[in-house]
């Protein structure tokens, strides 16, 4: 089974403000001493909201763009 992509968290940039944890509509993240980690990765819908909440640019949720096969 291929794993679903998750947003990437750069702990060097993270100031542990918790905005991504409280803002995630799916409660996919929890805060640890090291920073936010995915506690429920299967819940993540890749809505990319956490990237928008993050004040330090520590979260990146890159998207992939491709043509449908018939194009």
């Amino acid at each position, binding site marked *: 089974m291929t794993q679903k*992509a998750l947003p990437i968290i750069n702990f*060097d940039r993270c100031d542990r403000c918790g905005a991504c944890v409280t803002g995630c509509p799916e409660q996919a993240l929890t805060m640890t001493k090291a920073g936010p980690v995915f506690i429920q990765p299967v819940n993540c819908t890749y809505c*990319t909201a956490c990237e*928008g909440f993050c*004040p330090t*640019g520590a979260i990146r949720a890159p998207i*992939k*763009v*491709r043509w*449908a096969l018939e194009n």
Partner: protein
Amino acid sequence: MLIAPCLKDDRLNISDLTQIPLISALPLECRQQLSRFLIQRRIPAYQSLVLEGDPAEACFFIQSGTFRVLRTNQDGKVQVLSRLSTGAPINIISLLIPERVNRASVEALTPASVLALNSKDFDSLLASCPEFSTALLRHFAMRISHMTDLAADLSLLSVRTRLARFLIDLADSPNSICDWTQDEIAAQIGTVRDVVGRTLRDFETQGLISRDHQQFVLLDRSGLVREASLNPK
């Protein structure tokens, strides 16, 4: 925050300079001088190369990889300004302004390799190699001209048109080595992240694209091309 460690320091060969347009057009003598100054650095993904507000100690030329340029806005939020890839120079403006501080942070998005030129050597090149100064002037003239075109696009084309063009270009270029975030797309087409998100949802509702987790699939080429060629705002 960590500054990228130097994974490898190497003095260069002149042939290593061919993929940097700003340098490759310089006369041989000037390139020889530059190659004595330049030091190759390997940067791991997600490491910062330049930190906003620090003294400007060097500029860089990208040999490979993708970087993003970040700046802190008045509310203290970090904003994506642009992305840079192979051939682009980094941090030259910071060396040219009188304060000599880094005007923005620059972070690698992929494993990358850059050629570093420290500020002292930069100054000595400016003084001794007029062709280098001319190449810089040309580079900035092209940047200004690009920004003028972008400003014209902003006033003439709607976000829908600019985003449709961006999506088509991205899907048509199989060589894109690094995926884009909505912030980065917003910086590229001159809008803000929320508007990119809203417009993507509009395209989805209209059946032009569909979303599957991380993937955006472009479904209707002629519909998107129509969006991309509409001019009125």
